[in-house]
């Protein structure tokens, strides 16, 4: 078990005033078997009243509506969590066994899987580690080539990507192999932004694996949200009105 202080902030800045801004944030870490929150506070500016709900995947959703003109939306969250990966999460959903929007493989990705599947044997853990290593040997971690809309198939074609892309490709491979897998958005010691990794179902519980670093998940990882792919886990989703043309997002996270 490890006690971790976490801090995370994001700034949305618009180049013109916006109004009637509805947003849904997935930023408050869930309390689960593997993580216990000793404290957690969320601060949003400008001031706006918000409501908390829990979505279908078990994520905390903070929803709000900013009616008046504003040029930015900032939120910061800080707290203390106890993380213990000797315990296990068991919140299974059958949909995690099926490909989703971002993970649907194309012919190239299917072929990649077909070529390596003979070596992919053993327990779910053996197979997940094998697929993760095969992926690390094929795709290079490199920023600037992909964005939040990039699918597993697209990133695989580029052979380059960031943590989100590694996660999507690994999920796609796991699901092709008949192993249920889900996308995790969270914070990790290795990263100054938000991180993403994968959990696979062993048949009994979830286990975390970090494809961008080709390693297993330990107590240095805090889960913020989970879902079928990035779409279910977006930190912020919003709809606003105004004649702005640019939206700038700055993200920073610190673990200690």
């Amino acid at each position: 078990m490890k006690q971790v202080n976490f801090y995370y902030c994001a700034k949305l800045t618009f180049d013109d005033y916006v109004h009637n801004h509805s947003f849904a944030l997935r930023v408050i870490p869930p309390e689960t078997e593997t993580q216990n929150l000793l404290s957690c506070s969320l601060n949003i500016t400008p001031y706006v009243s918000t409501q908390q709900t829990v979505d279908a995947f078990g994520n905390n959703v903070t929803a709000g509506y900013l009616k008046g003109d504003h040029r930015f939306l900032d939120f910061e969250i800080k707290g203390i969590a106890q993380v213990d990966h000797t315990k296990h999460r068991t919140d299974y959903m059958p949909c995690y066994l099926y490909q989703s929007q971002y993970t649907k493989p194309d012919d190239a990705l299917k072929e990649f899987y077909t070529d390596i599947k003979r070596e992919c044997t053993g327990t779910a853990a053996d197979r997940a580690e094998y697929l993760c290593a095969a992926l690390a040997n094929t795709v290079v971690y490199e920023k600037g080539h992909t964005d939040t809309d990039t699918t597993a198939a697209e990133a695989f074609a580029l052979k380059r990507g960031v943590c989100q892309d590694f996660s999507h490709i690994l999920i796609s491979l796991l699901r092709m192999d008949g192993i249920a897998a889900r996308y995790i958005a969270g914070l990790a010691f290795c990263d100054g932004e938000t991180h993403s990794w994968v959990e696979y179902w062993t048949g009994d519980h979830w286990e975390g694996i970090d494809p961008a670093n080709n390693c297993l998940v330990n107590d240095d990882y805090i889960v913020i949200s989970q879902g079928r792919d990035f779409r279910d886990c977006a930190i912020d989703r919003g709809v606003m009105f105004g004649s702005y043309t640019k939206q700038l997002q700055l993200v920073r996270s610190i673990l200690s």
Partner: protein
Amino acid sequence: MVQLKQGQFMQAVGNAAEINELLRRYGVKFGIYKNGVFNEQFFPFDPIPRVITAEDFCSIEKGLVQRVNALNEFLYDIYHEKKIVRDGIVPEDFIYISKGYLAQCEGITPKNRIYSHISGIDLVQAKDGEWYILEDNLRIPSGASYPLIARELTRIAAPSAFEENNIVDNRGYAELLKETMENANCGGIRAILTPGRYNAAYFEHSYLAELTGSVLVQNDELFVEDNILYHRTYSGGKTRIGVLYRRISDEYLDPLTFLPQSLIGIPNLMEAYRSGNVGIVNAPGNGVADDKGIYYFVPKMIKYYLGEEPILKNAPTYLPFYEDDMKYVMEHLETLVIKDVAEAGGYGVVFGSDLTKEKLEEFRQTIIAEPRRFIAQEVIDFLDLPIVEGDQTVMRKADLRAFVLSGEKTKVWASGLTRFSRNPDSFVVNSSQGGGFKDTWVLSR
């Protein structure tokens, strides 16, 4: 055969042109997009009513109530415990590959556990008099307004037909719909959400709003604040909406939960709905139960959830997904009708008998490659109904969309939309394929 005083409704036949002109003026149209161009088509009305005897209706009614109750149980089960999958009645694949299954709806329990408030069940009557279910429509079935307004106008054109015959008044639909909406109401006004006047069923949206005393709204008049859905009033105030009868599809409903690019949705509507602050009619996620692949399992659902024998039959259906069925389909392809489970509105329906030898072979390979995508059915030789064409009466294929409303109780509207094919060789009656409609008279004795 029914003893109707034919002379009286022939008065309506004589006035058919006038009725159609009135319908045109009321804007009773059907809009369709074809190749990216919006065309509004007049939905032609045929004055000869379909007549259903009291006895026939009584058995149809029981069968439909049973079916819709089982479908509602199924929807609750799928979005909660999934017992029917665990017990091996419905294979898991059929649920999770279905486009209508929405994982975002997992765990949501709508008020009174009703998912399908308004169900449009399509039936046909075979030549031997037996009724068969063709399709369930549990998302946003349209069409109730057409027989409503046609009846209104026929009453004016041929009043004596309604004095001399024992026809159940169908004007109760408005009251039934209002009751159903009220039963789903979580506190607030009733509203009908339309995507706007370029929608195929805009006439219906406005007509039903008028009849039920609901506010007809578009998304830009609505917003969610503090998890409550509000209607923006003209004076700058806000009125809480307790139930939203939405006439837009699930994917467009909330850009923060479903398609982010949706411009006709309401951000955070799903959060308000999940919190039980607003009722959505029909519930999002119902598509998993009216999927053409799931249709096969409905009789099994009736037995599973209700412990009853199905009263109404399905058309004999085969799932190429099952080995035995695949074998049968391959051997009888030229006599079957094949439906693509992902398509609607009469699209993706192929009659084996219409295909050339090469096309048949090609299609055979498609089915083998994607068995889950198709269902195959025996072609039911359904009863032809008389329609007026020029100064003649000709016989055409017709089906019946019955409307089943689930409020405090599940009730069947004693009328329905009878659609017919204008093409003498066609079995496809969908309005988007150029068909017309008739009024449906249910006799009270």
